[in-house]
């Protein structure tokens, strides 16, 4: 894999976003501006899909791409490290954003200016966060994706959005401060922020420094927990996702995964098993809070009186499932987590787009779970709902079933009673509630309610949601490939020594051809900005 490839995944959306801001400001009227911005944004997203797939193929063959920005030797350079997990997450991000952009065409993007540039900035932050090999750089990309998400959340405004955004922004700013404090503690004790170097040095930390380092590590766990919405710091999620515009909440399906990804990156290689004084710092926490998150999420699903609100709790429950899988701190557990992350990102996003379509058509009843009008294209919507609900609950043959089965199979004997009971009981509760909600939405018809008449392009506007939900079927068809891939991913993450060796040594020779020099220049600029 050429070093240009990971850099392009960050620089391309940044460049396109900047250009489309400029184009938007120069256009004669808002509609023209939006058309041009959409064309630019779509170009960038479509161009990134083959790039992401190239990364996926290269990493699947076992390659770990290390890009040292400015070509300084490790650990001084800020590195981008692309392994299987990074490539998978970047691919998910790009594909998801493409569908979200498609889904936004029928209304959401027209609620205000600059939807498309914001989407590009969001992709830039996400891609960067998924590829960086440096803890402080991770902070910087977190901030980029957060500020884009603030603006996207506020997109279209409205009182509810404003209030939710205010809470979300303040919470995340406090989270950023905690992140910096943790970075300060860790740097002060280990003298490095390169993640591979940290993994090498954390194992050798003297016993006297260990308690402070553990405190720093657990502070990081709290920060990532806030991003991932793990109980007890999940309270921001339901109101935020509920308030956001439909396509925006669909895009936010990947935001909780950023937190989970960071937990995987930090608490397995750096503070994971076999790291001397700081071994397995997170182990007593992640699994129990994962179980609590799953229970709280399911209770929320049960209590919700609004379709979209219910979905936000489905997200919380899915975060709980991922945390359980990661929290087992075994290779099998991590493999199940990777599979589940891939499945639930696409599924949740599709479910949100579907919910948006249903709520729009129900007129003034909206998402409330009470008797509503007979909605247009009810049959297509109901079929999609059935697929989404089945996969969420984990009924065979859809990908949700495969994900949960892999998780249950990965649980070691000691944890089997707790994890199996919680997972199976919550799945059953969700099955009951989703069946109830489905029957309210599609069968509980009250003739004195007016449906919103179908607007063009009618039933075809369901295509983005349908495609995302079809992914659930496709994933279960190619379940074995994805399972093999996630097992290899987990093995790679647990193979700490190999990653350290790959990142810390084997510096590339100085560039000769001008093409590469240009990349270096760009890279240096990137590094300087960070």
């Amino acid at each position, binding site marked *: 894999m050429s070093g240009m490839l990971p850099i392009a995944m960050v620089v391309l959306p940044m460049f396109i976003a900047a250009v489309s801001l400029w184009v938007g400001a120069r256009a004669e009227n808002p509609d023209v501006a939006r058309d041009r911005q959409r064309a630019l944004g779509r170009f960038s997203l479509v161009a990134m899909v083959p790039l992401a797939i190239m990364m996926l193929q290269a990493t699947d063959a076992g390659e770990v791409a290390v890009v040292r920005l400015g070509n300084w030797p490790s650990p001084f350079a800020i590195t981008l490290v692309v392994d299987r997990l990074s490539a998978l997450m970047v691919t998910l991000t790009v594909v998801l954003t493409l569908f979200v952009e498609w889904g936004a065409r029928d209304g959401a993007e027209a609620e205000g200016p600059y939807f498309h540039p914001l989407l590009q900035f969001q992709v830039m932050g996400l891609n960067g966060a998924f590829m960086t090999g440096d803890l402080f750089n991770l902070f910087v990309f977190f901030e980029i994706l957060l500020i884009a998400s*603030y603006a996207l959340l506020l997109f279209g*405004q409205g009182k509810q959005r404003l*209030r939710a955004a205010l809470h979300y*922004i303040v919470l995340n700013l*406090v989270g950023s*401060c905690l992140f910096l404090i943790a970075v*300060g503690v860790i740097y002060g004790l280990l003298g490095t922020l390169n993640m591979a170097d940290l993994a090498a040095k954390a194992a050798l930390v003297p016993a006297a420094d260990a308690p402070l380092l553990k405190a720093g590590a657990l502070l990081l766990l709290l920060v990532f927990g806030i991003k991932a919405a793990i109980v007890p710091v999940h309270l921001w999620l339901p109101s935020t996702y509920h308030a956001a515009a439909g396509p925006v909440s669909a895009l936010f399906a990947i935001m909780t995964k950023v937190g989970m990804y960071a937990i995987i990156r930090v608490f397995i290689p750096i503070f994971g098993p076999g790291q001397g004084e700081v071994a397995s710092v997170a182990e007593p926490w992640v699994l129990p809070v994962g179980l609590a998150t799953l229970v709280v999420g399911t209770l929320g699903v049960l209590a919700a009186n609004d379709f979209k609100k219910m979905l936000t709790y489905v997200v919380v429950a899915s975060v709980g499932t991922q945390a359980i899988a990661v929290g087992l701190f075994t290779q099998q557990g991590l493999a199940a987590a990777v599979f589940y992350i891939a499945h639930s990102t696409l599924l949740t996003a599709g479910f949100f787009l579907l919910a948006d379509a249903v709520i729009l058509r129900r007129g003034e009843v909206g998402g409330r779970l009470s008797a509503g009008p007979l909605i247009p294209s009810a049959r297509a919507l109901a079929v999609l709902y059935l697929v989404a609900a089945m996969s969420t609950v984990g009924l065979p043959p859809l990908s949700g079933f495969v994900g949960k089965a892999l998780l249950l199979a990965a649980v070691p004997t000691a944890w089997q009673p707790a994890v199996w009971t919680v997972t199976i009981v919550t799945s059953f509760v969700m099955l009951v509630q989703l069946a109830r909600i489905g029957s309210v939405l599609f069968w509980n018809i009250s003739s004195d309610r007016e449906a919103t008449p179908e607007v063009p392009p009618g039933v075809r506007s369901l295509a983005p949601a349908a495609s995302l939900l079809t992914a659930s079927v496709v994933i279960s068809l190619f379940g074995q490939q994805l399972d093999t891939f996630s097992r290899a991913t987990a093995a790679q993450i647990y193979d700490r020594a190999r990653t350290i060796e790959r990142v810390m040594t084997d510096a590339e020779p100085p560039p000769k051809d001008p093409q590469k020099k240009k990349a270096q220049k760009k890279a240096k600029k990137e590094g300087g900005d960070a």
Partner: protein
Amino acid sequence: MMNLAFSAGVGIVAACGVYLLLRARTYTIVLGLLLVSYATNLFLFASGRLSIDKAPIYAEDTTSYADPIPQALVLTAIVIGLAMTAFVIVVAMIANQKLGSDHVDAGREDDA
């Protein structure tokens, strides 16, 4: 002595910041965020160890340098903090206008 004074200062600023953060008005929350981020920046700065009379990055005739990385980190953190504070102020002002109050839960009943 210097370490004690410095850490006490960071602690007091952070405590004031947290107190203000827990208020229910956006204005005090913004002030609290500012104080907390100042305390964080100072803390981050100190993670390279406090020292006096050392070369900031490099000097030819000395062997003791101050650690430049925390300085770079702080600089980045300040820039990001500034942008984020500006953003939160704008959002708070719009919220104050649209919701008719600077209470953080303003207008909750409207759209329940």
